[in-house]
């Protein structure tokens, strides 16, 4: 029984051949882990963790709708994400408004998605994939699209890095220095929408936080350096995503639990280290 469970969770038979098959998935996971870790630093600084969850549910609805209509699932996911991101960005400039809007959007999106899935006559594996991850089921052209979007988000983030940092820390002073805060906020929401849509494909709508929030939260536990925090966060995201995929491919279980568990363990270790660090200082 335990042996059976173990072999379902971890198996390294024919590992080399499997590795070849999932090579593109690993690349996609690696890129998402890195970009997710980077954008996570801003998600936390701008207090947007809840928004990530809200966007991901609408992204799920979009993907489920696309599945039902028989069109490109990534495109559907992107449409759902961007609609949610823009609604939240346009209506929720203040934190309290934002949280209530997200609270309203989230069940609406999830409900729509479940309706679309219930109407979908195809295989049920695809259905749960959107909620809990399905990277192995994503075909190569789509993987290419996901990688392309992630790289786009990465480059855009680096270009707006300083003004976005300024605006996140102190919007009033940034505005006085000519930082276009309104446009930056909206732009950030679009980038967030894009990366959430990618994450939904890879680890599923319910688990996107494990790659977009947890790595940055872990990094902030052990450092306050403006260079080290993003670097560590990207490293944690990378290790979680790639490590999760590598551990999972041999077994017969979905990949997401491996990714979320690694990401959570990293956070736990960082919390312990961080607690020790602040005790030493005080």
């Amino acid at each position, binding site marked *: 029984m335990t042996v059976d469970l173990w072999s379902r969770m971890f198996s390294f038979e024919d590992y080399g051949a499997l590795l070849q098959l999932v090579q593109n998935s690993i690349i996609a996971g690696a890129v998402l882990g890195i970009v997710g870790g980077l954008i996570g630093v801003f998600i936390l600084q701008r207090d947007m963790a809840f928004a990530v969850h809200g966007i991901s549910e609408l992204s799920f609805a979009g993907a489920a709708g696309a599945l039902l209509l028989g069109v490109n699932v990534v495109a559907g996911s992107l449409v759902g994400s961007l609609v949610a991101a823009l609604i939240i960005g346009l209506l929720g400039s203040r934190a309290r408004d934002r949280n209530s809007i997200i609270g309203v959007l989230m069940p609406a999106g999830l409900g729509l998605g479940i309706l679309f899935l219930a109407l979908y006559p195809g295989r049920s594996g695809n259905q749960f994939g959107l909620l809990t991850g399905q990277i192995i089921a994503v075909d190569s052209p789509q993987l290419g699209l996901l990688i392309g979007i992630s790289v786009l988000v990465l480059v855009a983030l680096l270009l707006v890095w300083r003004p976005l940092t300024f605006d996140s*820390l102190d919007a009033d*002073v940034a505005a006085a220095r000519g930082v276009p805060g309104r446009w930056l906020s909206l732009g950030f929401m679009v980038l967030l929408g894009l990366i959430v849509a990618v994450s939904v494909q890879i680890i599923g709508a319910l688990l996107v936080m494990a790659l977009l929030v947890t790595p940055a939260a872990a990094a902030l536990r052990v450092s306050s*350096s403006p260079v080290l925090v993003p670097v560590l966060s990207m490293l944690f995201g990378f290790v979680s995503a790639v490590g999760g995929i590598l551990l999972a491919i041999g077994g017969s279980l979905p990949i997401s639990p491996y990714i979320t568990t690694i990401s959570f363990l990293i956070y736990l270790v960082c919390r312990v280290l961080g607690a020790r660090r602040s005790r030493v200082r005080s």
Partner: protein
Amino acid sequence: MSPSADGGAGILGIRGAALALGGRTLWSGLDLVLREGEFLAVLGANGTGKTSLLRAILGQQRLDAGHIELDGRPVRRGDRRIGYVPQQKLIQPGTPMRGRDLIGLGVNGHRFGPPLTTRVERERIDGLVAAVGAERYADEPVGNLSGGEQQRLRVGQALAGDPRLLLCDEPLISLDLQHQRGVSGLLDARRREHGTPVVFVTHDVNPVLGMVDRILYLAAGGYRIGTPDEVLRSEVLTELYGTPVEVIRSSGRIIVAGLPQHSDHHAEHDA
């Protein structure tokens, strides 16, 4: 403060400015010329439009009438000729930023592009760190610093653009006496050494009384401008408020008593 140093036109010119918010006139017919090196304290109860005046000078608040010029050109949103020191808001512990990075935002924080700091920019930041006396904690996480230390860094940030004008919105609020002196001393030094005029919004004039050249006192619908001795007098404020107000001077401090209760919760506060 020689009034002719800038040709008499002043660095900041406000002419016939009027602003109403929510159907209530905050001020109208406001005329003010600020000359090189001048220190102007803006006093008044909450809701009299002190912060709105700063926002108007920053080009973030459209006037209902009149205009504001800096060096003879109309002010516009995001004008980097202006240095702005905001109300003290504590930066949260855990913010991934060191003291010098806060100053660095004033140097290149508005610039898009790869987040690389050039050697010239690094030297500029070092110079500003030294100018505001923050060497000791410049490399500490900014969230671990005290309110006073953070506020010194914000002054450094505001000076980064070598401003023509400094705007300060209650920069001393919730600082202890020592840091109040330190921060206001930095502003005083800047206007003395570089002639940068300072507009200083405050509800308590006492910490800066020794530096103030003129006071703009705002009250519901009206205002008075003049030296502290001209404005902070019982009969002047009584006329401005339309109700008996007493200005008490005791051991170098000025206290305004008898402000109308409805005006705000600072009614019994210092001037």
